[in-house]
């Protein structure tokens, strides 16, 4: 079956370069509004909104993640997926919007809630599902699991399980890009709780000090596990932390996939053109519990709060725009949904049929047997 992720990423007129001659430098460190107030130059906004085909691709990608994650919950419940499993439902607009702006040779690195970014980056649904099932055809050969998805073919540098731990790694990727004189960019996804971690400070300070092409993308879903942002951070407008590093920042509405794409394009332009890092605070919301063992609501957030946020479902937001702009119909939606469901079923079947890793794999890849 055709892999929608890959086909989308390779289709024309999607790369950040589309922004063309924009000289947008409007990012304002003090800016606290959503992206609709960004006032960026028209060309990036236009490129970000693109045409009906782009919007359809973004919708398709978000829907793939949504349906994929729903099946993950089901697989977890019947024991096909084990360990920790953190779902991306509600946050699809963030990963899809940001990654849609990247070039194929850019790098993506993420935390442990990374199924969505992995799919958006182009790891096949089959390879991700097989990894979650702990099977040999998984993108990490079944040895990483939900929190450690990797794929060298699409420059997906992993799912990392220690909060904040991958931020300095992203800085190092930026360092290597600059060392080689390249013009790639590294995009680093992490939750808002990581900004309270020392690694955040160390990573951003060096990236700004050395002017490295890295976009630090905070997925502010309001809760670090069960601890609300305002119970953990002395500053609630966390993009303001960029001031400490004299780093450009922007606050973005994460439920608007096109706004995320536009903000990412602006950050990419700074990173590629001037080797300047950016802190993007993308405000979103997680519709599920922290992990599969966490109730959706009840302890640290109310049902009412959850329902209020679910009104701004990123899929619904884009779909409504498409109904207005592109004449998108319920029939179109049903057709797409059926297609995606079939794709995810195929991924499930593939994963289920894939063998467990052979026992010899236990001692493989501890060390490599080479020198250079």
């Amino acid at each position: 079956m055709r892999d929608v992720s890959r086909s989308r990423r390779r289709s024309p007129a999607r790369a950040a370069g589309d922004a063309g001659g924009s000289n947008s430098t409007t990012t304002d460190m003090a800016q606290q509004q959503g992206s609709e107030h960004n006032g960026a130059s028209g060309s990036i906004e236009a490129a970000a909104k693109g045409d009906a085909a782009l919007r359809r691709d973004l919708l398709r990608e978000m829907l793939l993640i949504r349906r994929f994650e729903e099946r993950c919950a089901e697989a977890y419940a019947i024991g096909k997926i084990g360990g920790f499993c953190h779902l991306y439902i509600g946050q699809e607009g963030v990963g899809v919007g940001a990654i849609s702006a990247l070039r194929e040779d850019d790098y993506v690195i993420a935390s442990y809630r990374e199924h969505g970014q992995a799919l958006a980056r182009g790891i096949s649904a089959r390879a991700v599902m097989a990894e979650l099932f702990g099977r040999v055809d998984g993108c990490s050969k079944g040895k990483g699991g939900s929190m450690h998805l990797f794929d060298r073919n699409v420059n997906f540098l992993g799912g990392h399980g220690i909060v904040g731990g991958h931020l300095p790694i992203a800085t190092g990727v930026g360092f290597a890009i600059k060392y080689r004189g390249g013009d790639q960019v590294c995009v680093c996804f992490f939750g808002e709780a990581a900004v309270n971690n020392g690694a955040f400070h160390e990573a951003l300070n060096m990236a700004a000090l050395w002017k490295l092409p890295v976009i630090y993308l905070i997925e502010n879903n309001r809760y670090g596990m069960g601890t609300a942002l305002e119970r953990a951070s002395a500053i609630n407008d966390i993009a303001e932390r960029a001031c400490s590093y004299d780093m450009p920042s922007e606050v973005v509405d994460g439920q608007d996939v096109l706004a995320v794409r536009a903000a990412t394009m602006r950050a990419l332009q700074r990173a590629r053109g001037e080797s300047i890092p950016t802190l993007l605070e993308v405000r979103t919301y997680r519709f599920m519990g922290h992990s599969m063992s966490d109730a959706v609501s009840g302890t640290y957030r109310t049902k009412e709060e959850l329902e209020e946020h679910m009104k701004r479902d990123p899929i619904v937001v884009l779909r409504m725009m498409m109904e207005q702009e592109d004449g998108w119909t319920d029939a179109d939606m049903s057709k797409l949904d059926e297609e995606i469901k079939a794709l995810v079923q195929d991924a499930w079947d593939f994963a289920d049929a894939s063998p467990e890793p052979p026992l010899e794999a236990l001692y493989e890849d501890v060390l490599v047997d080479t020198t250079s």
Partner: protein
Amino acid sequence: MAIITYRDALNQALREEMQRDDRVFLMGEEVGVYQGAYKVSKGMLQEFGEMRVVDTPITELGFAGVGVGAAMVGLRPIIEFMTWNFALLALDQVVNSAAKTLYMSGGQYPMAMVFRGPNGAALQLSAQHSQAWESWLAHIPGLKVVAPGTPYDAKGLLKSAIRDDNPVIVLEGEMLYNTKGEVPENEEVVVPLGQAEVKREGTDVSFITWGKMVLVANQAAEQLAKENIAAEIVDLRTLSPMDVDAIATSVSKTNRAVVLEEGWSVAGFGAHVADFIQRECFDDLDAPVVRVHQEDVPMPYAKNLERAAKPDAKKAVAAAKKVLYLE
């Protein structure tokens, strides 16, 4: 044959490997403008420039992670810790990222990088600056660990570490930097990882040791020689992977073993060596294996207490006599 310091041997290794491979760079605190806290990188900023000899803020976790990221995309970083005592802040990157990424990515991301710096106690630096970390580091699958005790091995092991496609820990010693030894000038000095060396031949007792303790073992062997006891010194040089054959060969010859290490006894690397010997050399042993190590206390400042805490030649001689049933 030139006689050079351990410090200069490391400097030669760094410079030769950076000349050989432009993916190799040195990063750490004070490695550039200051010329190295212990002058190991003297002259390198001038030779290679600031992109390849990179001064960092005091941010061990951060720049260890920068090394990991650079290694993931194909560079070959050498991360210098001013001392391994400060590296504890960086262990999350060393353990969770450098050591495990190859495995958890199913073999996709080798981590060709070196973490190096002085390890263990110097003189009167007190508790926080006087710790030997090899037991912690050798414990971790996915890392190689070397601890050179001579200038020749320092040069040869560091060069091999830089060429190896795995994360390699290089444990140097502040008290070793000024020590001198023979290092040939006009030939390539490369010591393969994983190979021990018999530094002194003997028939009566085996000292199994590494790093700074090789010097202590030598002093002990000299004293024992005066009493007609011939001690053999097996310098492991690489702790992980450990050269088990070299240990077994020596123990089968002397039938008595003393494991000499700089760090604490509890769960120390020496316990791992002793475990191997009792399991694989049981029939060769004429006495239980004895360990010499730092006393199990934080390192005290006072000169007399520090001396009492450290493993030394006197303790090593006593241990040798114990396994020979002479005391």
